């Protein structure tokens, strides 16, 4: 009960209170994703005139925008959750060293905060889709499931990196770089077809690619994610989470001693 209250307070602090004193306040944390969506939709559809045709997708001048944003929002959320969780123990050292707080629960507020930003961005995005008269389908109802699986993996990875980065500071820089590279190794801004054959293998082994495809299937092609996808990713999420919790448990005493 108290833990929940602490998490909610931290989340609130992260989303709203850090803008206290500014005129727009909490609106600032919405502004960033909104601007992102606007830039990518307008710049690529209006100015660059990018056109995209996917099999089974209804034609629209905003096709590329939809293609980009549906994957980008999820990636941003995933990437931010992992990278921010990686540094959590150092960032909150002042609290960990002074009060007894669960090392597993603490990062949950980042998960909450980043997920909230995603949800709000998605609301804007769906609004945009309705606005341009692009059809929506029931397959969108599966989106929260995919998103939850994604975020469980993000939390697990973040927790593992966070634990190790207490002892090896380089991990935080390393994670930053890995995520920058990872972004471009994932078909988010480009279409997988344009990749030369000898690079195609990389995309095939990139575990984020199936997620990106799943989001696009739901939003653009009105298809549900495959059962195989759900089973595999749920397993991966479970294993990551179990591993993360095990490592944190094992090294808990050392983390507290070091901080």
């Amino acid at each position, binding site marked *: 009960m108290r833990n929940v209250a602490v998490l909610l307070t931290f989340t609130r*602090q992260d989303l709203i209170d850090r803008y206290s*004193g500014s005129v727009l306040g909490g609106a600032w944390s919405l502004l960033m994703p909104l601007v992102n969506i606007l830039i990518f939709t307008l710049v690529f559809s209006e100015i660059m005139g990018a056109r995209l045709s996917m099999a089974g997708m209804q034609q629209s001048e905003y096709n590329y925008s939809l293609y980009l944003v549906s994957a980008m929002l999820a990636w941003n959320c995933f990437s931010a959750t992992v990278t921010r969780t990686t540094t959590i123990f150092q960032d909150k050292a002042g609290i960990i060293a002074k*009060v*007894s707080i669960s090392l597993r629960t603490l990062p949950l507020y980042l998960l909450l905060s980043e997920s909230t930003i995603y949800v709000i961005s998605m609301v804007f995005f769906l609004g945009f889709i309705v606005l341009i008269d692009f059809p929506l389908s029931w397959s969108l109802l599966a989106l929260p499931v995919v998103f939850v699986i994604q975020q469980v993996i993000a939390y697990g990875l973040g927790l593992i990196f966070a634990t190790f980065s207490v002892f090896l500071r380089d991990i935080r820089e390393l994670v930053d770089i890995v995520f920058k590279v990872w972004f471009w190794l994932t078909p988010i801004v480009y279409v997988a077809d344009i990749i030369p054959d000898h690079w195609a293998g990389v995309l095939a082994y990139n575990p984020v690619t199936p997620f990106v495809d799943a989001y696009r299937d739901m939003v653009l092609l009105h298809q549900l994610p495959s059962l195989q996808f759900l089973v595999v990713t749920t397993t991966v999420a479970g294993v990551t989470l179990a591993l993360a919790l095990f490592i944190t448990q094992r090294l808990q005493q*050392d983390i*507290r001693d070091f901080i």
Partner: protein
Amino acid sequence: MIQVEQLTKSFKLYPQPSDRIKELFLRRPFHTRHRVLNDISFTVADGEALGILGRNGAGKSTLLKLLTGVLVPDSGQVALSGKVTALLELGTGFDMNQTGLQNIVINGLLIGMTPAEIEAVRDQVIEFSELGSYIHEPLRTYSSGMVMRLAFAIAIHANPDVFIIDEALSVGDGHFQQKCMRRIRQFRAGGGSILFVSHDLNAVKMLCDRAIVLDQGNLVVDDEPEVAVNAYNQILGAGDDLDDTSETRDKGYGSFEAKIEAVELIGQDSRADIVTSGETATLSVHMQGHQDVGEMTLGIMIRDRFGQDIFGTNTHHMGQSLAIEQGENKRFDFHFPMHLAPGKYTVTVAAHEGMDHTRHCYHWWDNAVSFEVAGIRGAPFGGVCNLQPTFTETCAQD
């Protein structure tokens, strides 16, 4: 109720933090162990106040962190009934950009209060902190004293069952400190336990029922505050094993290059150790040199029947330089008007090098002599001492 059983804690020291990860994967030790606490056991009953004394690095902070659950012990157990709040958590999680009110919630949650409890005491906290309308301003606009007052007010209203008070209590002005002390006494009267960690020996004697002394991770004394404080002083001065000096405890301890043979206090008029308040008294210290001591300071501390320090000084502070040769017998006299309130007092005498006894202590003798102040010469007064006020009256005229 606090029950600590055979608590042991050591830190693994790694040449580099990253060696911890190497160790994990290579499965071969890279660390050396540094034991900070060794087999500590004690209990604190409900409504009891326990003082914890020890030099820096003796393991006090580690002990407190084990009690609050911030650190995990190697072995041993801590059993606490109820909620623990530690004043060492003062201001944890304070966000300088947020208002006092918002910080009450953040800090309150972190030190273990539920949202409902915070809501219930919020007005009391604001009143206690004396911040008034500043409570709606961001913390960065506060003075450091105001931040501390707010932190205190929250901690003190957390209504724990066990209260851990750190050195932190010495922050704030006299008025606020007294308010805190009153509140702490109330808390204790209500059946709460207190752990009090301080270097302020007087405060330990005043507040605690019992005290423990930690030395190099071991619990060396668990006794009345008076006894514990003296033992702690002994550790400060000698740094030696307590057992070695136990036989000489009555007549003090030290390296005895110069030894205090006898101490007496005599009133100028009474010619006895019962003096009247206001009478001039002479404290005579008879010393013998066992070696040539070229630079010596002689210090005294008068304590009341509660063991509270009343007045102390030494020849270093008085600008005197003393010396004694081997085989030489000397008498040193302190003369002072005894402006103390009636009551029984003891005098602790020490001969040491430099301005205090921590560098090199020749001889420290607790309660070397006792005396009594009976009756008052001149106008009666209240309190512990006579400040000999004068009085004038002035008519304010425009």
